């Protein structure tokens, strides 16, 4: 399998009074059109890794890498027009919370059509049609209403479906999902994940699924990167998680509550200062 995305020794640093602080410290991985999970606790650098792939490291942060390649394009050196062809067209990202990630003064329809019309030469009517199709695909029952609705008029689950529709309307090859369900109610999470799951399978695209939820990631992805303090501490097949070798991964895994056999108190996740070295 040829690699769709190659990341080698990615480092992201933020300036501080005491010199630059590295928050991502040498992340490397390669992936094809598969499902890669990135897990880690908050601050482990997983979201920043996802954004760096799209060249959207929030300033004043700086991302450097030995290699950052998408389908043969060197993303470190990508020009404005190359980015235009990549962002939203070949790589998309579903953001965390639809309450903040949708423009509050634009209707869902306008935002959805904007993605499409940025990348496809089309009339308003065609874009509208595609938008409706896409809203159908994310199982929104009344797409006509949602097209004309403003983000605040939708529930979190609906908003996130609209977000997914907006990011997939151009049929990208790689989707980065940055904690796509963390802001949603537990009951809604499963629905949204199912939709995402089906769309990713149907369209055969690559997926980077970023989450702090180990169980979710392991049930959803083929392969899991476990990040700790800006580094990948372990890469493991999702099915092999139980046999993970790194103590941090084991710790995370053991923390998961199980329905059978009440395990109280839950074990505490022990952190070893050596892991961060």
């Amino acid at each position, binding site marked *: 399998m040829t690699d769709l995305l190659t990341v080698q020794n990615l480092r992201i640093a933020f300036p501080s009074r005491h010199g630059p602080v590295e928050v991502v410290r040498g992340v490397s991985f390669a992936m094809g059109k598969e499902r890669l999970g990135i897990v880690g606790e908050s601050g482990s650098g997983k979201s920043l890794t996802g954004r760096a792939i799209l060249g*959207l490291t929030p300033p004043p942060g700086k991302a450097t890498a030995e290699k950052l390649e998408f389908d043969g394009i060197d993303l470190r050196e990508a020009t404005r027009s190359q980015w*235009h062809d990549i962002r*939203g067209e070949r790589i998309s990202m579903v953001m965390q919370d639809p309450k*903040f*990630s949708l423009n509050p*003064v634009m209707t869902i329809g306008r935002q959805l059509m904007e993605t499409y019309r940025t*990348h496809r030469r089309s009339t308003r009517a065609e874009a509208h049609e595609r938008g409706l199709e896409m809203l159908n695909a994310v199982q929104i029952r009344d797409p006509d209403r949602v097209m004309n609705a403003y983000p605040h008029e939708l529930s979190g689950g609906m908003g996130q479906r609209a977000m997914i529709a907006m990011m997939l309307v151009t049929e990208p090859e790689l989707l980065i999902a940055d904690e796509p369900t963390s802001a949603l109610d537990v009951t809604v999470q499963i629905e949204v994940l199912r939709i995402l799951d089906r769309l990713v399978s149907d369209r055969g695209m690559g997926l980077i699924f970023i989450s702090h939820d180990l169980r979710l990631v392991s049930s959803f992805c083929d392969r899991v990167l476990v990040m700790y303090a800006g580094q990948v501490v372990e890469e493991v097949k999702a099915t092999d998680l139980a046999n993970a070798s790194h103590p941090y991964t084991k710790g995370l895994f053991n923390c998961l509550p199980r329905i059978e056999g009440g395990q109280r108190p839950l074990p505490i996740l022990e952190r070893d200062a050596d892991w961060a070295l």
Partner: protein
Amino acid sequence: MRAPSAFLWQVTKLLATLALTFIGLLLVTFLIGRIVPVDPVLAVVGDRASQSVYDKAYIELGLDKPLYEQFWIYMTKMVTGDLGQSFLTKKDIADDILRVFPATLELATVGILIGTVLGLPLGVLAAVKKGKLADQLVRVLGLVGYSAPIFWLGLLGLLVFYAKLGWVAGPGRIDIGYEYSVTQTTGLLLIDSAMQGQWDAFRNVVSHIILPASLLGYFSMAYISRMTRSFMLNELAQEYITTARVKGVPEWRIIWIHALRNAAVPLVTVIALSYASLLEGSVLTETVFAWPGLGQYLTNSLQNADMNAVLGGTMVIGVIFVGLNLLSDLLYTLLDPRVRRRG
């Protein structure tokens, strides 16, 4: 569409708020009128009147009645548009104000247009180029606008552009030669002269207004650009901007459509209040440029202890202020879908 009762309720609420604000305003001006150490009777009869004349005027003015009754009389008069008579001009104050207000309105409107047209893009530019040279330049420009005394800039402007270069006309609204050829229907000379097709007069008016309006425009530009910059910085840091970038939306669209459209919501209030402050009569500017507007009228009245005129003028300014606030609220509702449709 929601049930009409919700809408009616909203309108009622709005009207009630307006009425309350108005009564408050009346109360304040009324009290000012009683507190200032100017004897309204003396202003009428002069300081050499006999005691009997004084007493007669005292009763005629209703000053012997209890305060609440005086307030009631004052209020009913104000509501019917009777602002009383000026001691100075012996005319109805309402007429006086109607005569001077168009001058201020015209100046303020051209001023706020200049201020907005310049201030908005400059503020956006400063936000986009935050920390870079362009940002610094805009900020310095704004700082000078904030801190330079307007009468000084006005005199300097007159000296340079009128006296030395002769690019613009001097003080006043229009040259005397044209003054009587233009029939004043709206009182706004730009509109009157243009409607009557008197283009020479129109050019003359433009040449008169351009300097003071630019000056006022510069001051509101300083404020508007600064607020635009801060609102834009706030919007550009939001998540939905990242979403737009992820979508591949070109940067100009992100700035001018996504971010500015959101920043426009609070900006409306800023511009409206800025406009209100210009409409209140820019006393110094009107003095320097011998502009026969509300500011000059009020200064004159104040200097001559013409309290009726001062209070009438204050009342008008208050109404303008409330009106513009109302307008900005309405625009707010139009621009922000989250405020709309709230019962």
